[in-house]
């Protein structure tokens, strides 16, 4: 059984198919139809809701998430706030601003947009979020009617207003978000959700329990944020018989410095590790801002991005360029291996039955090291990379003492470019050596043509990203459209 708070009221749910998304549960079981399905794949944001997750310090973290690809079992111990909490006029400042600015036309994306903005509003501290944060908060909400200008305007207007709900308001807890959530109850229990039809969902809270479950059910599917796994349910119409969630195992969620390394737990979400990783290696920050949308980054985890072994996951290439170490855990205990040895082929990894990703150990920068991470996609926001290039270079007195070049989208797995690395090592860091490295890339990779890009484009861009890295480290020109003011 799971227990959570929906718009101020406690819900207890059991004997339900754990393949059910939060959205399906809301719309079909509760007949709360304010939250919409636009794509059922986490790409449009019409289904956006807010979850409140109790933290260790008694605080509650309020986040906008895609309810269409979040599973019902993930709600245990949380608060769920939907647009249905805001049915009483005059409404939240966000709703009033959206009306005044004509931020809705057909209205179908609107509940999701309202919830994204309400989440941003609830999390605003003493300083009003700037346009940058506003756009980030809306990056996962598609609108086909307005062209966004009035929505952005509505966001600006609402963010300078205060909201003081009455105590009985269904979303009253949001209004107290920054006071530390006095009502937070941390459910420290492991839970199991069963359905009469058979599918089962476990959410253990300790590493030991997780190990035991994995030993007992090696065929079970591991799930964290379900931003990828849920697509098997909503798009391929699969029924997953047994899922084991890692998102409640506290040891897998930590993000801490250990000696020279930053250790990121596999179940840490992008938003949870972004600040620490970007502090160590600032090149991650702009890339992470374009990885998925805020809703995705609130749910997606590092372990998920690595373990699903997609050739176009954005985290593996830069971590491989840095020489990060992967820590695996399982029935036979812990083992470590370089991340690049983890990927065997398309969606094939080194994971043995019952094993799971425990954490990733990221080395800190050393003298003269530089890291460049470049993501290239059709659309700037919320798009999967056509090519992602990540380059770690050690340049001593103008000579490339060491380099690791890794790419996504160029092969069946995230992969290093051995030929291009060899062409650069020991050479001056200049046009000639980069040209030689670019030539070598053609032997390193034979990329595919697919809906995102052609093989020719991928190869050309991969080379040009090396040129960009050279220019970035040797000139002060603005080189990227995202930096152009």
């Amino acid at each position: 059984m799971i227990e959570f708070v929906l718009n101020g009221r406690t819900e207890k749910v059991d004997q339900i198919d754990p393949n059910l998304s939060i959205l399906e549960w809301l719309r079909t079981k509760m007949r709360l139809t304010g939250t919409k399905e636009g794509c059922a794949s986490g790409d449009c944001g019409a289904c956006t809701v807010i979850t409140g997750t109790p933290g260790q310090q008694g605080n509650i973290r309020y986040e906008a998430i895609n309810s269409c690809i979040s599973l019902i079992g993930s709600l245990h111990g949380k608060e769920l706030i939907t647009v249905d909490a805001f049915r009483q006029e005059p409404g939240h400042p966000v709703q009033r601003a959206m009306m005044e600015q004509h931020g809705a036309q057909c209205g179908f994306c609107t509940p999701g947009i309202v919830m994204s903005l309400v989440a941003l509003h609830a999390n605003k501290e003493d300083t009003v979020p700037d346009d940058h944060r506003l756009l980030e908060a809306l990056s996962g909400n598609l609108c086909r009617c307005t062209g966004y200008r009035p929505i952005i305007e509505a966001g600006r207007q609402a963010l300078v207003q205060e909201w003081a709900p009455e105590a009985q308001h269904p979303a009253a807890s949001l209004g107290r978000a920054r006071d530390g959530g006095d009502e937070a109850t941390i459910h420290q229990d492991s839970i199991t959700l069963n359905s009469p039809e058979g599918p089962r969902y476990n959410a253990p809270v300790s590493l030991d329990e997780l190990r035991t479950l994995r030993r007992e059910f090696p065929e079970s599917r591991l799930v964290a944020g379900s931003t990828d796994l849920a697509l098997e349910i909503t798009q391929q119409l699969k029924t997953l018989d047994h899922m084991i969630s890692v998102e409640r195992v506290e040891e897998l969620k930590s993000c801490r410095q250990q000696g020279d390394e930053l250790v990121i737990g596999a179940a840490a979400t992008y938003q949870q590790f972004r600040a620490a990783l970007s502090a160590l290696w600032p090149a991650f920050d702009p890339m992470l801002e374009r990885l998925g949308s805020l809703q995705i980054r609130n749910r997606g985890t590092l372990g998920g991005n690595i373990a699903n072994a997609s050739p176009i996951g954005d985290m593996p290439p830069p971590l491989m360029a840095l020489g990060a170490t992967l820590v695996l855990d399982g029935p036979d205990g812990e083992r470590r291996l370089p991340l690049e040895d983890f990927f065997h082929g398309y969606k094939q990894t080194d994971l043995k039955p019952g094993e799971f990703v425990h954490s990733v150990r990221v080395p800190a920068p050393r003298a003269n090291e530089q890291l460049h991470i470049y993501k290239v996609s059709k659309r700037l926001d919320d798009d999967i990379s056509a090519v992602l290039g990540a380059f770690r270079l050690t340049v001593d007195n103008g000579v490339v003492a060491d380099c690791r070049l890794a790419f996504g989208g160029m092969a069946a797995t995230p992969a290093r470019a051995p030929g291009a690395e060899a062409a650069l090592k020991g050479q001056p860091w200049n046009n000639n050596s980069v040209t030689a490295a670019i030539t070598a890339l053609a032997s390193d990779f034979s990329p595919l043509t697919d809906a995102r890009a052609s093989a020719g484009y991928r190869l050309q861009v991969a080379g040009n990203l090396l040129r960009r890295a050279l220019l970035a480290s040797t000139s002060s020109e603005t080189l990227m459209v995202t930096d152009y003011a």
Partner: protein
Amino acid sequence: MRKMPLNTPTPAHSARGLAGQGVKHDSAWKHVSGQARYIDDLPMPEALLHAAVGHSEQAHARILSMDLEAVRNYPGVVAVITAKDVPGDLDIGPVFPGDPVLADDIVEHIGQPIFAVAATSHDAARKAARLASVEYQPLDAVVTVKQALDQQLFVRPSHTQQRGEPDRALAEAPNRLRGEQQVGGQEHFYLEGQACLAEPTEDGGMFVHTSSQHPSEVQKLVAEVLGLPIHEVQAEVRRMGGGFGGKETQAAPLACVAALLAHATGRPVKYRLSRADDMVQTGKRHDFYNTYDIGFDDDGLIRGADIMVAGRCGYSPDLSDAIVDRAMFHADNAYYLDQARVVGHRCKTHTVSNTAFRGFGGPQGMMIIEKAMDDIARHLGRDPLDVRKLNLYRPGRDTTHYGQTVEQHVLEELMENLEASSDYRRRRAEVTSFNRTSPVLKRGLALTPVKFGISFTAKHLNQAGALVHIYTDGSIVVNHGGTEMGQGLYIKVAQVVASAFQVDLARVKVSAARTDKVSNTSPTAASSGSDLNGMAALDACEKILEGLVAFAAKHWSTPPEQISFSDNQVMVGGLAVPWETFIQAAYMNRVPLWSSGFYATPKIHYDPETGTGRPFLYYANGAACSEVVVDTLTGEYRVVRTDILHDVGRSLNPEIDIGQIEGGFVQGMGWLTTEELVYSDEGRLLTTGPATYKIPAVSDCPPDLRVTLLPESPNREATVFHSKAVGEPPLMLSIAVWSALRDAVASITDYRYSPPLDTPATPERVLSAVTASQHWLARQKEIA
């Protein structure tokens, strides 16, 4: 007889919310609080079933056998039907035949429905529909426009419009250029997917809730597939979660399937498409292959043009005849072509049948002449803006290649104004100088016009009806044949009604479009919603007013000319009668308080035999100036600023109109930049969801977007309060973005070479234009 307030401006002191005021959408609160109901949100009727279809996995094939046992046996399945189970007509082609509701024998595209399932849940219906085993005998499939052109495979006959002697003019012109382009299609991506709910009536008929721009067509086609007279079927549309043309003909097939299943089971059936099924099974904007051959003098003035436009129609005609016609009508955009020939082909391919999409072929036609404008300018070393301005229609050069005279010349002044307000010349110099020194990033600037013809080119569709009811407390309901898809039609028509009676807008309520209230309605399309329905509603109001004035004159013994309506009162001589009191008195004296209204657009005609006529009542105009920055290493880009000046005549609601302009512009920008429909060689759509099909997201909105309505520009024609249509024209303002991208790339060759840039101009295509420009430059250096 009292003169009604037809086509008069709103008085300065008046009731609130009248026409001309920027009031918010009638559903605004419901939208922001999640209380606006779309089809899938309606309370579920008892015993509701859910539908899904099984569709063809072959682009062109004969079905040899179809084993549906596993489908039937899936838990929850209640009924499975095929073409053989259709009691009435199998073909549901909206204008011409060619669209079987369920394919029988031959399939002609991947995604074509071949059987339908009703089950107790949405999930069960979808899962069951995947279990059929179908044996196909593959037939030759044609996938692209060029393949169809090569094989002369068309869904409808080709058509030519010609004036004068274009061949001679081309031969004699001092300069001559030829060019070709591919213009991509576009998925509508309405956020609410196609959906409907069919409920059997007690008379053996059907009531259909549908998310459709054309309820009357839904009604007619459902009646036909069921073999019933039309009056046994009624359809209702409260609102759509976006339409954009994608729910003009494409909603009816769903309604027919749902109705067939409801008929077969005697139970209500809901049918909504998942996003992937919607993208695979329903039609999109036509992609085009266009060519031009243009002769011009040394200033860039066009002497002759030979233009070909060819649209990928898919497997059936649908609306393609009119869509390619509109591409031909707009192959001149805003320019006088002089001696001209425009040929249009309707190419048949074994892909989904393409359909209406905001602009209806017009945008694709405009693209070829806008490409030519850039090319002429580069050839002559002139600023493309100067070439565009030089070729504008103006008095003396004011007749289109299809013989319609441009009567209201708005664009020359409009473009001059925008050129000044956008600071085009200074920024042109700045951009050029930036590009000389910036090694990687290049900026581009372009200012392009839009002239768009307003009226359905199918003449009979230019009619509308409305019903206006006043209740005894003075509250009013207006109902008309138009449908609400977010464009603000309902609020605009309500404002027209409020203006007619000079009462507060709050007294006027809009109600859902229903085929048993106003019959034989035209689709809400062709930007015509408020032109047609606003006038029909006004007609109804005038009829009521006529009776009210006659009553008041008699009741208060006052001459009719001394009776007027203003600010929620009726002035009877010196007596001010509050609206409620007046209406109560009229009721007690047995005066009719409701009326129907009707409107048919005057003046329009077109002869397809000669390719001449006046297909449009008037033209809507606008222009946009866009600036972009392009990364020449990756082809990535951003639009940094856009200025728009648009002509909506005398606006019925400036806030709603600005929303249409901004939304249309960004939607058009998506069409020309990131929205790429990718098909495999076998005709399978590979971009079947938002993960791979990228419509603009929030950061794509230009950070500096300035939209202004052209002031003091009443429509010369007697449209409703002299307003102009606004739905489609702004989409084509986005051509400025495409032209600015080409401009940025052209800077590589110091603007001497006009780089090819087919659309959508994805980063990949932009990088390819960059590479082509670099190669051109290298060749020039070799020559020198």
